[in-house]
């Protein structure tokens, strides 16, 4: 699915989303509600310019449209891998973007994200993963690194990784694995407008990924370990 088809499916009642190269933003109408939309297409690498542009538009929504829901539709193959971006402090640009999304939530904007194409590492961390709720399309790709690259770096034979990934959701890319980890709330199939409408009604800012990851069997230690540190009796 391309970005324009996606937008038409999400907002059959109409939208004003404009494209600047691989970045798009604007508003859409979902069952009578106006939703701010920010997204990227073509699995773009997020560099300092794009991070700054997205942060600018999040701040703009906060200033001009109090409490308006925000939908993030970020397709990214990760952060831009460049010496120049590192020199300029790309980590600070992505952190700034993260802070603006966090501020929007604190100011009462429901924030929902939909991984519709691809989400990788730093680009995923600083956008979709900051939403109150993160959803995915079944055909989306989510991960840190493909198995051949992982095999090269960890020096673990590829066959070993492949056979283990059949049972373990912990390291192999895939939407189903992130669903089990609790990072993806649910997978959207069918009527996207209905899914978006429902998601805007179910918002809670409570961090529930550990609970989901535990109950879905993807992360069986994260919840209990964090709880043991949080409530440790001494100190």
């Amino acid at each position: 699915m391309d970005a324009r088809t996606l937008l038409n499916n999400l907002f059959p009642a109409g939208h004003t989303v404009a494209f600047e190269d691989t970045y798009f933003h604007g508003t859409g109408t979902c069952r009578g509600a106006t939703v701010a939309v920010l997204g990227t297409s073509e699995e773009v690498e997020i560099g300092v310019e794009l991070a700054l542009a997205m942060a600018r538009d999040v701040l703009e929504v906060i200033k001009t449209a109090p409490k308006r829901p925000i939908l993030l539709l970020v397709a990214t193959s990760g952060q831009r891998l460049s010496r120049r971006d590192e020199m300029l402090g790309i980590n600070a640009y992505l952190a700034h973007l993260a802070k603006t999304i966090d501020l929007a939530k604190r100011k009462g904007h429901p924030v929902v994200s939909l991984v519709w194409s691809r989400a990788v590492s730093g680009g995923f961390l600083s956008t979709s993963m900051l939403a109150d709720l993160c959803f995915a399309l079944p055909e989306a790709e989510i991960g840190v690194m493909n198995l051949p690259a992982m095999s090269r770096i960890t020096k673990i034979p590829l066959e070993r990784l492949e056979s283990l990934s059949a049972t373990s959701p912990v390291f192999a890319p895939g939407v189903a694995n992130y669903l089990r980890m609790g990072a993806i709330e649910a997978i959207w199939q069918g009527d996207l407008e209905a899914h978006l409408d429902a998601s805007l009604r179910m918002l809670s800012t409570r961090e529930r990924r550990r609970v989901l990851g535990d109950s879905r069997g993807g992360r069986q230690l994260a919840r209990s370990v964090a709880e043991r540190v949080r409530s440790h009796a001494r100190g």
Partner: protein
Amino acid sequence: MNHSYYEASARERMAAFLDPGSFQEFLPPTDRVSSPHLRQLDQPGAFDDGILVGSGRLSGHAILAAAQEGVFMGGAVGEVHGAKLVGLLERALITRPEAVILLLETGGVRLHEANAGLVAVSEIMHAVLAVRTAGIPVIVLDGGQFGCFGGMGIVAALCDAVVMSEEGRLGLSGPEVIEASRGVEEFDSRDRALVWRTVGGKHRYMLGEATRLVEDSIPAFREAAIALLGTRPVFGLEDLEAEHARLRERLERFGDCRESIEIWTRLGIEDPQSLPLLETQAFLAQVGGKRA
């Protein structure tokens, strides 16, 4: 006694950083809370999964602190490692310490449990933001052998202050990662001088990303952290707009630079080539008032 921060282990750093004898560890090695995923991939785990978390005192002030061990898997974040840090940050919301201090040394997500690690880093980001929202400062120390990269580089930039030594490095994609995927022409990770000019403590200090630059000693990091204890988190709309303006200006002023030395020149440093060679105190004297 050697007080180098760079050379010390995470446990040595923590012991020497806090008031003597004040560290109270949560889930210590005797609890054996280590990674089940490493074992599955035939990798020996560590009894603390590469991070120690606990409470302690800094110049008498109650704080919570964490220290990552870079020698163990490059300080990388796995499920248990990340959960210990998340739990510590969330504990701060209950016990309200003067500050949470993070002695970071990490390459980011641990590939052997990449998905769990990535989600854990996201939870750390959420938790840092929650702690700051509650008015408790989060302070990062970065001066270890492995620097602070990957998602944890984003985490560092979410915090109230970052104390670095010249030896510290801070970024998102490590030089090795960039070289491996974009070629040695893009970033020669074995050119140590280039690496430090690009992501090292001095350059981060010039850009304003490192709040303070200290010499490579645990007491120097301690003094800097004590001085930052009064920091009060502010990141409302106006603060983020000011940050936005700073980052936009940085891009406008330096976006066409290929090398940090060009940035230092534009900042008005008279002999920019000499900056990497200066001792910390001489460096601070040389660049005073000229940071971005």
